[in-house]
C-alpha cells in the first residue's frame, strides 16, 4: 500500500460516520490532490497536511456536514482525550523551548536525528528479549543474546534482529492500522523489558563495585544461604568481630548484618562490625567463657543456617580480626 493509499484510507476511516455516498464524494479529489502535494516537495504527507484524522475533521467541518448528517460518534473518554491534548500542548512548548538550548530549532529536530540509533537499539532489545524467553538459565545470559551459552548464536540473532528493526522502520509509514498498533505495542513491551534489564544490570554492577571481590555464583553458590559466620579458634572459643579476607586482601562478605532480637523478635542492624553478626545465635557454645547450659545443644541444632567456619571459601585464609 502506498503512502497515498494509506492516507486516503485513514481519511476514509475517520469519515466513517457519514454515508458511503457522501464519503466517496468527499474523497473523490483526494488521491489526485495528494499526488500533487507529493510531487511538489519533500516530506511525508502527514508532515505536510497533518494526520488523516485532522484532515477529515477539517474537510467535514468546511463541507458543512455537521447537522445534515449523523454526528460523528462522541469520543468515549472525553477527559482522557482532553488530558492527552493538554500533555501534547505542554510537550510542544517544551519542544520549542529546549530546542534552542541545544542548538536546534526544536528539540524534536534533534531527536529525529537519533532515530536510526533507536532502530539499532530496538533490534538489540528484541534480540535480548527473544534470548531471555528461550534461555533456561536466565541469570547467565550476560549482555549478548546468548541461547545455550553460544556466542555465535548470539551474534547471528543480534545481527538478524537489528537488520529487521531497521527494515521495519523504513516500512512503517506504509503500514496499515493493525500492524502499526502491533508495532507500537511491541515497542512498549521492549521499553519495559529494557528498563527491567537495565535495573538488573545496574544492581549487578553496583554489587561488584561495593563488594570488592564479591563473586556471584548465582544459583550454584553453596554459600548463598549463609546468613552469618562463626569463627572458632583452636580451643573451640568463639572469636568475636572476626574479619574474613581472601588471598588478595579483599574482604569476603557473607550473610547480611541483620539480627533478630531473641527477646523481642525484631530484626535490626547488627552492632558488630565483624563476624559473627549475631553472636547469640552461635551454634556451639564456648566451653571456656560460658558455663555449659543444658539448652545449648538444642539451640545449636535449631539454627540451620549457622555452619562452623570450615565452610567459608577454601582458598581465602580465615584471619581473626586484623587490627583496625
Amino acid at each position, binding site marked *: 500500500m502506498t503512502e497515498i493509499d494509506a492516507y486516503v484510507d485513514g481519511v476514509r476511516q475517520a469519515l466513517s460516520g457519514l454515508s458511503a455516498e457522501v464519503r466517496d464524494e468527499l474523497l473523490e479529489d483526494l488521491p489526485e490532490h495528494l499526488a500533487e502535494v507529493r510531487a511538489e516537495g519533500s516530506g511525508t504527507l502527514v508532515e505536510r*497536511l497533518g494526520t488523516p484524522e485532522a484532515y477529515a475533521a477539517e474537510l467535514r467541518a468546511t463541507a458543512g456536514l455537521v447537522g445534515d448528517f449523523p454526528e460523528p460518534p462522541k469520543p468515549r473518554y472525553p477527559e482522557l482525550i482532553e488530558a492527552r491534548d493538554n500533555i501534547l500542548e505542554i510537550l510542544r512548548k517544551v519542544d520549542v523551548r529546549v530546542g534552542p538550548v541545544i542548538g536546534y530549532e526544536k528539540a524534536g529536530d534533534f531527536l529525529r536525528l537519533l532515530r536510526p540509533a533507536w532502530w539499532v537499539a530496538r533490534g538489540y532489545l528484541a534480540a535480548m528479549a527473544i534470548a531471555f524467553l528461550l534461555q533456561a538459565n536466565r541469570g547467565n545470559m550476560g549482555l549478548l543474546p546468548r541461547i545455550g551459552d553460544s556466542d555465535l548464536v548470539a551474534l547471528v540473532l543480534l545481527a538478524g534482529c537489528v537488520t529487521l528493526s531497521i527494515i521495519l522502520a523504513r516500512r512503517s509509514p506504509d503500514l496499515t492500522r493493525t500492524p502499526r498498533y502491533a508495532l507500537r505495542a511491541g515497542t512498549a513491551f521492549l521499553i519495559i523489558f529494557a528498563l527491567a534489564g537495565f535495573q538488573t544490570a545496574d544492581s549487578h554492577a553496583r554489587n561488584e563495585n561495593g563488594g570488592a571481590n564479591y563473586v556471584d555464583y548465582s544459583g550454584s553458590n553453596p554459600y548463598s544461604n549463609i546468613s552469618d559466620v562463626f569463627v572458632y579458634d583452636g580451643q573451640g572459643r568463639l572469636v568475636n568481630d572476626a574479619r574474613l579476607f581472601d588471598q588478595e586482601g579483599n574482604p569476603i562478605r557473607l550473610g547480611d548484618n541483620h539480627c533478630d532480637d531473641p527477646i523481642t523478635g525484631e530484626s535490626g542492624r547488627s552492632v558488630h562490625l565483624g563476624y559473627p553478626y549475631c553472636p547469640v545465635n552461635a551454634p556451639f557454645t564456648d566451653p571456656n567463657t560460658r558455663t555449659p547450659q543444658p539448652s545449648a545443644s538444642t539451640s545449636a541444632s535449631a539454627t540451620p543456617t549457622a555452619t562452623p567456619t570450615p565452610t567459608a571459601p577454601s582458598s581465602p585464609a580465615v584471619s581473626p580480626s586484623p587490627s583496625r
Partner: protein
Amino acid sequence: MDTTQLLKGVLDLAVLAVLRDEDGYGYDILRRLRAAGIEEVGDASVYGTLRRLFSGGLLNTYVVPSDEGPHRKYYGLNAAGRAELQRSGKVWHGFASTMDDLLRERGAA
C-alpha cells in the same frame, strides 16, 4: 489577530473570487488562494468549501482527462455562483469599510 479565524467567515467568498475569471481544479484553486496571499488556508478546508458550494448549487463541475497525470475535476461558477459572488462581495466591502472607518476613528490604523 489570527487570520485563520477571519478566514472561516470569508473562505467561501475567497474561493468564489478565484474562480471568477477561470475554472480550476482543487489543487489549482488552493494554489491561487495561496498566491493571492491567503497562505494559512488548509488543504482540506478548500476541498470542503468546494463541496459545500457545489451542493449549494453555486458551482458546476466537469472532469478533464489528463495524459500525464490523474483525471482532474474542474470547478466553475454558474449563474447562481456569480450572483452570490456579487452579493457577498458587496457585503464584504460594506463590512470592510465599516471596520476601516472604525479603526481609523480610534487612531489604530
